């Protein structure tokens, strides 16, 4: 098979990566493989890192790759607060050593109707959660992205409020699939992909997977989320991938896998039903979209 131009990492990109890596921690030692990984072919690095929704850096999907270099990711810490026995501020270096890093190759389905396969690096979010000992009253986990208008110029035009906030129910946050992610393709996360730490929730639409996390708060009530706040008719709290529940403006039945010509059928829970569907037993997923 011939190699397409888009599959080759351009010189400028890998030189940038080298420069970046020289300043930061070196490439991860070979992360462990995970049984949760898909065997599907990963989307090329070039596409994963130049086609991004990260509205703090502009609403065009090519803009984050061009502009995110202004984000300062070192030093970085995450504030963990709310209904936990051990609230704390945790440094990124400590997060990296919290649990063994694994490679997790996940499908990613965007609410806009496209998808990718991405080899993330990280460990289950539950590893972090159990270390901070949530109180029994904590039923939800609220996430907040970093926001700084100087480092994120252009955010003012996005049409959604910042900082970006999202949330998961406690059982969703503790699901082994939910990844606390610090890298992709064996390297640290590029800034446009949510450096230095983000979550990945592969059975939900991509916007649930918060990038560049600054704050994690354990709460009793369902926390507000950015998209459902700005357009409640179109985006709900759960936002599980569901081919049967259309976005009001387009069908969710099919998707275009980046790099493929024909569309493919979208799978319930993005194909992760066996690990996730039971969490929603008895819930009307049309009402809780």
């Amino acid at each position, binding site marked *: 098979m011939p190699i*397409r*131009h*888009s599959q080759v990492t351009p010189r400028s990109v890998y030189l940038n990566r080298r420069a970046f890596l020289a300043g930061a921690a070196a490439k991860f030692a070979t992360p462990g493989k995970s049984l949760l990984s898909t065997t599907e072919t990963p*989307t090329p690095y*070039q*596409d994963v890192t*130049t*086609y991004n929704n990260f*509205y703090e850096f502009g*609403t065009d*999907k*090519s803009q984050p790759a061009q502009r995110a270099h202004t984000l300062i990711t070192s030093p970085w810490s995450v504030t963990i607060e709310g209904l936990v026995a051990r609230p704390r501020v945790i440094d990124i270096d400590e997060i990296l050593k919290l649990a063994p890093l694994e490679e997790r190759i996940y499908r990613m389905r965007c609410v*806009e109707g*496209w998808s990718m396969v991405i080899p993330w690096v990280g460990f289950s979010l539950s590893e972090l959660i159990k270390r901070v000992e949530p109180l029994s009253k904590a039923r939800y986990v609220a996430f907040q992205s970093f926001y700084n208008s100087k480092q994120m110029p252009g955010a003012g*035009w*996005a*049409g*959604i409020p910042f900082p970006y906030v999202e949330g998961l129910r406690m059982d969703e946050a503790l699901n082994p699939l939910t990844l606390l992610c610090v890298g992709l393709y064996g390297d640290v996360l590029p800034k446009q992909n949510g450096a230095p730490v983000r979550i990945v929730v592969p059975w939900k639409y991509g916007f649930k997977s918060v990038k560049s996390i600054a704050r994690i708060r354990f709460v009793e009530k369902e926390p507000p989320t950015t998209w459902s706040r*700005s*357009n409640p008719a179109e985006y709900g709290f759960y936002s599980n991938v569901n081919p049967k529940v*259309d976005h*009001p*403006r*387009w*069908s969710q039945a099919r998707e*275009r896998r*980046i*790099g493929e*010509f*024909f*569309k493919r059928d979208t799978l319930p829970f993005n194909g992760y039903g066996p690990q996730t569907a039971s969490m929603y037993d008895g819930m009307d997923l049309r009402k809780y979209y």
Partner: protein
Amino acid sequence: MRKALVFLLCLAPLALLVWRGARHELGANPIEFITHATGDWTLRFLLLTLAVTPARRLLKAPGLIRYRRMLGLFAFFYGTLHLATYVWLDKFFDLQEMLKDVAKRRFITAGALAFLVMAPLAITSTAGWIRRLGGRNWQRLHRLVYVSAAAGVVHYWWLVKSDIREPAAYGVALAILLGLRKMRQPGMAPFSKKGAIPG
């Protein structure tokens, strides 16, 4: 000669798209790129077509009328490419899905309206049709271009998720072009009652 040059210029957006496509430079999602590019150029050519009348007056260049039909037909041309991208590359000729879209999704309803309204204008753009309809009727029919442009802007506005800058810019441009018509000076009536080519 000059007309041939304008013709080639109008083809440049398509040529650029084909060139970039051949070099795999349409980004991670080429079909989305083509959809957006052809849609953008449809709106731009519609606005350019609507700019001819005010430009003739403001630039004191009545000769610009020679380009209006061509610009309008290029709007239809890019609109057809835009529609073909949707029908082929997005829906793969699934008629049922498309009818559902037109009925259920208001941004597609608006887009379909914008295109359908353009079609009779393209067909009746020839001198023969102007004669057959009579200048006055022809001009009345061709006022539908305002409907098409407005529906096109609404189509775009209803599509975007949250950042409305671009559709808003097209909307403002359209409003200005329509506003300039309201301020048309008396004595510059561009259309003679006898049915010459209207302006």
